[in-house]
């Protein structure tokens, strides 16, 4: 699956990989970000 041109829903998690980190990574691979949120389970 090629990330270039994909439109991404970013759902990060505080103690896993957070949204800003995921966003940086997918953007660098050529995707757009439609939505980004970091969840906190507690």
């Amino acid at each position, binding site marked *: 699956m*090629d990330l270039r041109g*994909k*439109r991404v829903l970013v759902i*990060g998690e505080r103690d896993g990989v957070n949204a800003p*980190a995921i966003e940086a*990574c*997918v953007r660098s691979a050529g995707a757009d970000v439609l939505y980004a949120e970091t969840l906190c*389970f507690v």
Partner: protein
Amino acid sequence: MDLEGQGRIRQVVEQAGTDGVIAVLGANSPTAVEMTALTLKSGDPSYAGSLAGIALGIPSYHILEPEITGQVDGALYDRELALSALAMDVTEVIAPMKAIRES
């Protein structure tokens, strides 16, 4: 588990459509990513959220799946992902993802 942002995601998708839309997840618990992936593909399995009964058909990937990390520049990977990759049990966390995409 609740995907509390279901309402907002639903709004975004209603506006933008689902063409070329994927989700990329970052949680460190296999159950958490499994529930999110199922919800975005076939609707909220707990029937508790806005996406209950709504099958968006959006495929989900975990940020640490090799098919994603393979597309991330090395320096960026080291800075943003390397620690998490060592801290979590990546094999366990990404295990449900492919099967849900292909179901």
